[in-house]
């Protein structure tokens, strides 16, 4: 049965290149294709596109942009709450959705969850609210990364005392309060979706009921797997590519430092392609470090800058390996999905969502997280040992958007009956 669906995302992919918003947007497009009247609401912080009396503007007919700002990022509440909620209610009156599906809650504000619930109750509707987790914000106040503020070490479990170590200006009670507060909103979500098992597990450990979270990967646009890069005689599989933001969490420095451990004769033929940007936003110390490495290995590094998703196919064609040396857990990185769909084996840190999506020596390689020497070891093996073809053949396609959308719709059906 055709449904009216409202997807609420924390950003619009036209303005922001994150995987979460892209995934949400893809679902919005697919639902419409499948005959469900779907709207896409995205919050944004661009002051120059707002109208006078309303936080809303419209983009592409069924895409609503909502200007919002965080009043308290710690508790994820919005400024001008009264005004925004009034307008949001009006929007719901206007669209009258059967399903509201949140992707993220940061920048959107937790309040909208409750406001949605209140609207359903007021209209005596039995509609349901869903939430897809794209990071660990509810669990971790450090940008939802679960990495310690003090030394960027991985964090395995939150607790008021542990969290207070990362934020000395706050006391431990404040973190329990945050947890209770978030949970009081999550109470009102009917069902959660997680794009990876790893992320689901973190939330289960945090206290969300196991049966309330379903794992559905973000679906990809169907494409044909690319052929392997053509190798000329005597040449080896030695082109490694990095796709993503150039920041400390994505671990670009781990990759560049690995070059230091490559023996001369291998280094000679190794090419590192960097596709991405953002170094200028990082702290000075990190910028200096990366720039120095780029200079040191300038013979091996090709810097391409940022890219558009539609360019990916061509970019992937001319490489062998995709390296994802992230130092944080990752969830369901888009780059991994894309590498899998185009047929490029991945070399990833052995933690979190990365280790889940890539199987060591089956369709890719794991290396010791944050360890450049170990990464170098595997790079050498990747070049010297002839297992590329095996890995390439083993790459199974990721879930396509049709299938992912179907899984969601089945979920919606299931809850409709409840």
């Amino acid at each position, binding site marked *: 049965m055709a449904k009216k669906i409202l997807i609420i995302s924390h950003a619009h992919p036209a303005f922001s290149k994150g995987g979460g918003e892209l995934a949400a947007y893809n679902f919005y497009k697919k639902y419409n294709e499948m005959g469900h009247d779907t709207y896409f609401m995205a919050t944004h912080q661009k002051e120059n596109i707002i109208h006078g009396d309303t936080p809303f503007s419209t983009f592409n007919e069924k895409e609503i942009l909502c200007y919002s700002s965080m009043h308290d990022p710690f508790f994820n509440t919005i400024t001008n*709450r*009264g005004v925004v*909620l009034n307008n949001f209610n009006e929007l719901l009156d206007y669209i009258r959705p059967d399903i509201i599906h949140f992707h993220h809650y940061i920048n959107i504000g937790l*309040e909208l969850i*409750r*406001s949605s619930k*209140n609207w359903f109750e007021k209209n005596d509707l039995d509609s349901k609210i869903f939430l897809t987790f794209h990071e660990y914000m509810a669990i971790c106040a450090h940008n939802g990364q679960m990495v310690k503020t003090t030394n960027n070490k991985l964090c395995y479990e939150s*607790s*008021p*005392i542990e969290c207070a170590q990362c934020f000395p200006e706050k*006391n*431990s*009670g*404040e*973190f*329990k*309060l945050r947890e*209770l*507060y978030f949970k*009081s*909103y999550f*109470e009102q979500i009917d069902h959660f979706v997680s794009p990876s098992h790893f992320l689901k597990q973190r939330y289960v450990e945090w206290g969300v009921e196991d049966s309330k979270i379903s794992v559905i990967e973000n679906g990809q646009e169907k494409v044909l797997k690319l052929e392997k890069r053509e190798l000329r005689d005597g040449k080896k599989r030695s082109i490694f590519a990095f796709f993503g933001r150039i920041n400390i969490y994505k671990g670009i420095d781990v990759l560049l430092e690995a070059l230091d451990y490559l023996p001369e004769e291998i280094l000679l033929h190794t090419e590192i392609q960097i596709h991405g940007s953002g170094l200028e936003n990082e702290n000075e110390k990190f910028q200096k470090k990366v720039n120095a490495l780029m200079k040191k290995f300038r013979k091996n590094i090709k810097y391409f800058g940022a890219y558009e998703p539609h360019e990916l196919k061509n970019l992937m064609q001319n490489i062998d390996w995709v390296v994802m040396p992230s130092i944080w857990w990752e969830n369901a990185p888009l780059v991994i999905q894309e590498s899998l769909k185009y047929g490029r084996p991945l070399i990833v840190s052995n933690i979190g969502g990365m280790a889940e999506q890539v199987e060591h020596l089956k369709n890719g390689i794991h290396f010791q997280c944050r360890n450049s020497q170990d990464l170098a070891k595997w790079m050498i093996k990747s070049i010297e040992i002839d297992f590329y073809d095996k890995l390439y053949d083993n790459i199974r396609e990721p879930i396509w958007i049709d299938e992912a959308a179907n899984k969601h719709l089945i979920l919606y059906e299931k809850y409709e009956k409840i």
Partner: protein
Amino acid sequence: MTKKIMYSIDNAQFIDGRLIIIGWMIDDTLSIEDFKLKIDANLYDIKHNDFVKIYRKDVNRSHKKERSELYGFFLMKEIDLETIPSEIILTYNDKSFLRSKYSIKIILKNFTLEQYKLILDEYRRMKNPAIDDFFKDNSLIEDTKPPMQNKSIVYCIDYCININGDSIFISGWAYSNDSNKVTIKALDSEKSYFYAQARDDLEEEDFNGKHKHAGFFAIAKFKHNMQNQKITLEFSDEFDNHITAHIDVKNSSGAKELSQLMLKPVEVDAGFKNKLEDIYGVELSRLWENYYNSLDIVPEIKNYGSIVENPKLSIVVPLYGRIDFMEYQTSMFLADDFFKNEVELIYVLDDPDKFYDIIDGVARELYKLNQIPFKLVKYKKNLGYARANNIGSRFATSEMLLLLNSDVFPIKTGWTQRLLDIYKTLQKPGVLGCKLLFEDDSIQHVGMSFKRETSLNEMWVNVHPYKGMPDTDKSFFVKEIPAVTGACMLLEKKNYDLVGGLSEDYVLGDFEDSDLCLKLMEQELKIYYSSEPELYHLERQSQSLFDDKDWKYKITFFNCWQQTLKWDKRIQSTMERLNG
């Protein structure tokens, strides 16, 4: 070009018919003839008797003058005046060609200790008969700081402040050059208590270092109201030297400031309790009681959402320091349908300075968001924990009343019903409390008891056993105990009203909860603790009332003393009954 003369008037005041001016003027031809005094419309010449030049080390040093050169002056003129003049001008004509005239406006104020030290120094050195005369007459005592000397006895009054109309707080210092002991009496007082105080500031060189214990503080009670009056203090030593001093009684600025002042010189030692028993206890109590009674409070109440008819439970939550707790609590309470139409939730704003104007807007938005009805009580002055609860309870319409702190949060749903259900099973219940946990899931409260504290003169102190320890016993049980915390207290409204609610005698919070339990036990009712439900009490979140830890400790001591005074026997028998 005329050279401008540098000068300064350091201080000036009227004492007993004499105008005294201290200052300095850098003019080599400085001469008395050139000074004239203009007081309101009248002109006065300055004569030789009125004026003495003084060596000012500080002035000479900064202007690089020789030791022999005197640029300071001490001017003292007898002037017969009915009232304090509105304008005093000191005019000075210099000897320059143009005979420049300086008109110096004189502003009267009290001398500081430094000023008088200066004068004393010079006096000792100069032995000028005019000043000698001046200092000999001891009735020229000014009302606060400067020390007056009668050869043997030297004293200084720092404070002389009206506490409760007929009572006064005095502090200062006094020593005798001839003997080690100075006795002080407040003449005409009904009773007075003087206490010695060791003061670091009296250890300085000028006082030969042997007068560290010359400090004193006192409370004196009189038959009549002493506001704007003078008191007479008599200082005497063993050798029959004595001085009398007439001191103006000043008004205090506020209860908080005055109690801080009164408690500052008090040491927290074995003698504290005695002081409380002497007079401190009574006067502090009166001070706070009078303060609160003087406030004209008209509580306003507003309903958010529909009024709950026949609620099964009224919850009173005072807000102080943070109002965002209202948001977190209501966000967590709404998971219980019970709160939609069975609970009467009453928030009391006891922090009006910060939030009086904005809280209505906040509450309105909160109701729209969380959709559970609640009442908001507010008034214009901070009244403290006890009064906030008592006022909030006035608006409670249910038979059952729950006192709840704003930083207490539920762990599971159904917690209020659980409390009510358990209450129904109790024998002669006075109050029911339950388990409270810290954020790390350790014990915050599993009941309270009392113990005699040796370091506090064996007074009864409230004990929260096992605080911060792991909560290993998760079994369900209910038991009778001596007291429970006010952070979460369930009782029948009729019992609350019967014993007059929370006692308003304790200063700035604390002990009201144990006091309530004792009052109820006096009515043959029992105090119970239940290990369920469990709630979080994020205790550190509540803002501290005390920026001054020393004062906080002393107020706690006072409260502790109050409780023991009221309840010594009842606590003793309760502890025997429940432990034995």
